[in-house]
């Protein structure tokens, strides 16, 4: 099989795992203002042992991009300098919260704010980066504003933030009890609706405006629009139905929502393929040196399955509702 396609799949997989895993812990940070002091601590305890592993998937995806498509890596990071640094600064601020919040006495307000702001800015920046890449890194109007402040990039920023909120509330629902669980259930339902509406707005108001979508994929795009409507409606329905059912189905809802995201994500990739930066670079044009791709692929093929096994194991060690507040 074509090396470029294999590596594209590895990166696609890495980004998806990242979005789900760091998605829920970033989402919890965005939801912070809606949680009480005690609830915030419970929420933080539910992710303190996994956030570091979750963030590693971003480094993995980034490094895979460097190996496989160095042109994309250098073009994207060089062009999107400001949102990339915004994201990194934000991730620093929220990352250190896990280390210091539990040990803080007087400064807890600052750490809470740092966690909320860091998570929100990081999620939003990731969305604007995605949006800018989909725009082909250059808007077709005169460059009055930087590409990452284009309305489409901002819309993607909001969409990603809402996606993470949904994941975060679903995660909390699985990992907490009684009052907080109920509260998260209600937040999750609202977030799923909000997510679906925002998806439709993004697809209908923006995708028509892309020259690359119009010219190269016009047929696919038109049918895709309708697919999005159907898929969005269907998945919103079944996810919410699963979530409001009286049986304890929160894990199932989480998985359903992940499936929902996967379908949208694959649809988007299908639209862009074989470009990696629309209208600029196809995966074959951006591909790195073959020998290096092969060498690194051996590592991925041998080690990634092992990584997945112990990642699942470490999640299992801490799974289940917390038995008591000081349960570690």
């Amino acid at each position, binding site marked *: 099989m074509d090396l470029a396609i294999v590596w594209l799949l590895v990166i696609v997989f890495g980004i998806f795992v990242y979005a789900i895993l760091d998605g829920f812990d970033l989402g919890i940070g965005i939801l912070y203002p809606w949680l009480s002091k005690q609830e915030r*601590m419970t929420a933080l305890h539910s992710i*303190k*042992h*996994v956030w*570091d*592993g979750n*963030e*590693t998937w*971003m*480094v*993995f995806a*980034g*490094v*895979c991009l*460097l*190996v*496989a498509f*160095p*042109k994309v*890596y*250098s073009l*994207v*990071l*060089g062009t999107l*300098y*400001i949102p*990339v*640094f915004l994201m*990194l*600064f934000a*991730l*620093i*601020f929220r*990352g*250190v919260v*896990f*280390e*210091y919040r*539990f*040990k803080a006495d007087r400064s807890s307000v600052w750490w809470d704010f740092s966690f909320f702001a860091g998570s929100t800015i990081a999620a939003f920046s990731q969305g604007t980066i995605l949006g800018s890449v989909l725009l082909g890194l250059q808007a077709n109007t005169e460059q009055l504003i930087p590409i990452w402040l284009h309305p489409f990039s901002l819309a993607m920023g909001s969409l990603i933030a809402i996606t993470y909120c949904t994941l975060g509330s679903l995660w909390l629902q699985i990992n907490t009890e009684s009052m907080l669980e109920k509260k998260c259930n209600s937040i999750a339902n609202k977030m799923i609706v909000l997510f679906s509406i925002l998806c439709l707005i993004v697809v209908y108001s923006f995708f028509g405006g892309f020259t690359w979508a119009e010219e190269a994929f016009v047929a696919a795009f038109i049918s895709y629009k309708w697919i999005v409507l159907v898929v969005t409606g269907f998945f919103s329905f079944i996810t919410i139905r699963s979530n409001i059912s009286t049986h304890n189905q929160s894990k199932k809802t989480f998985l359903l929502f992940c499936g929902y995201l996967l379908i949208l994500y694959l649809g988007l990739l299908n639209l862009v393929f074989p470009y990696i930066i629309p209208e600029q670079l196809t995966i074959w044009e951006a591909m*790195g*040196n073959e*020998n*290096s791709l092969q*060498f*690194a692929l051996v*590592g*991925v093929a041998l*080690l*990634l399955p092992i*990584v997945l096994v*112990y*990642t699942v*194991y*470490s999640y299992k*060690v*801490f799974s289940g509702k917390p038995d008591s*507040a*000081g349960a*570690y």
Partner: protein
Amino acid sequence: MELDPAVLSRIQFALTISFHIIFPTLSIGLACYIAIMEGLWLKLRKPVYLQQAKFWIKPFAITFGMGVVSGLVLSYQFGTNFNKFSELASPVIGPLLNYEVLTAFFLEAGFLGIMLFGWNRVSEKIHFGASVVVAVGTILSAFWILAANSWMHTPAGVIIDNNQILVTSWLKVIFNPSFPYRFAHMLIASFITTLVVIASVSSYYLLKKHHQPFAKKSLGIAVAGLVVLTPIQAFVGDLHGLNTLEHQPVKVAAMEGIWETEQGAGLRLFAIPDQAQAKNDYEIVIPKLASLILTHDTEGTVKGLNAVPADEHPPVAVVFYSFRLMLGIGVFLLTVAYLGLWLAQKGSLFSNRYYLTILKWSAPLGFIATLAGWYVVEVGRQPWLIQGLFRTSDLVTPLPAERILISLIGFVIIYTLLFGVYLYFFKKLIRQGPEVISSGNTTEVATSNIAKANGF
């Protein structure tokens, strides 16, 4: 004044990597220390070992966390500020970093949670296993990152075809000529740095008459470790220097402050290098000694900086002074270690207040020496980014200077703030001291104490 984007990008990279390297230096050493203490506890069942492990896990956790967040920045900075480098060198650097993520980062992250929070979720043996895995992860991470870094100093296993780097042998790339020395030198540096920190904290307790059995144990271990490691480090450092002389003679010339090629070169104890005039002012020289050390012959020839054109000179003063600082601290720590051994034989290691006070204030020395060592190595490679092949100034991202200035100011503010916070919490943990662990029912007592200490 016109700001040079290339210079700004280099300052930013130097700042971020200097800040970052402080934390892995300590976390590599602490991870190994904790794993060893846990192993000793499983074997000997003496509570003091469990106490060591449980106490040092807390400073380890905040140190590791700082390493993660500051390291994240670095993995993207190749692309943001040196995007021509990331594109050009990706055939070599990319796979090495990829292996680092797969063999080290995931491993550390996967087992760190169990190590920090898994005390009563998994069995003692699995917990010990998790601590060992985390320690191995930190060392593997150093392995890959130093392989990549060494390759930039002594590139091997590649051919340059049409300005593209193509790998011909991965073994030669990874085990490039300077890698074994650099890897050993850095690992020992991090062990020494950690032992000095442990000795410093132990001395602080002994001076304050707090937690005495605990502090005596760790001070004993730290001094014993330093007695073994400091001479080994001097030896490895010497080998590393000889390797550098073979592959990067200009760097050695800068370290020694030798401008004109000399036969029977003297060792400059002090000098003020003058880059513009290509000479030193106010030299104090010990005749023939540099030749003796570098070539093991008093009449050996040492190549001077002027053997290459002036535009291939690194910033000599930085290299020259950093080298002396590193060496000076090395000699000081070696002396301190053997002074400790002598006091231990006299039976006054734990009671000599002068010695304990020296140790107490020595905590930052290992870090300063490590940083100085890195400046020797990295500044000494300039103007090359990949030695002899590509210049730094040709591989930076063509960015507007203001944009880099903004991110640079951001880093200065954030890192200053973070470092203050880190030190504050580090001190707080030290002041709290180790948990009391009774010999019976050890695990339960310890865990409930940890839960209390964490505010629940």
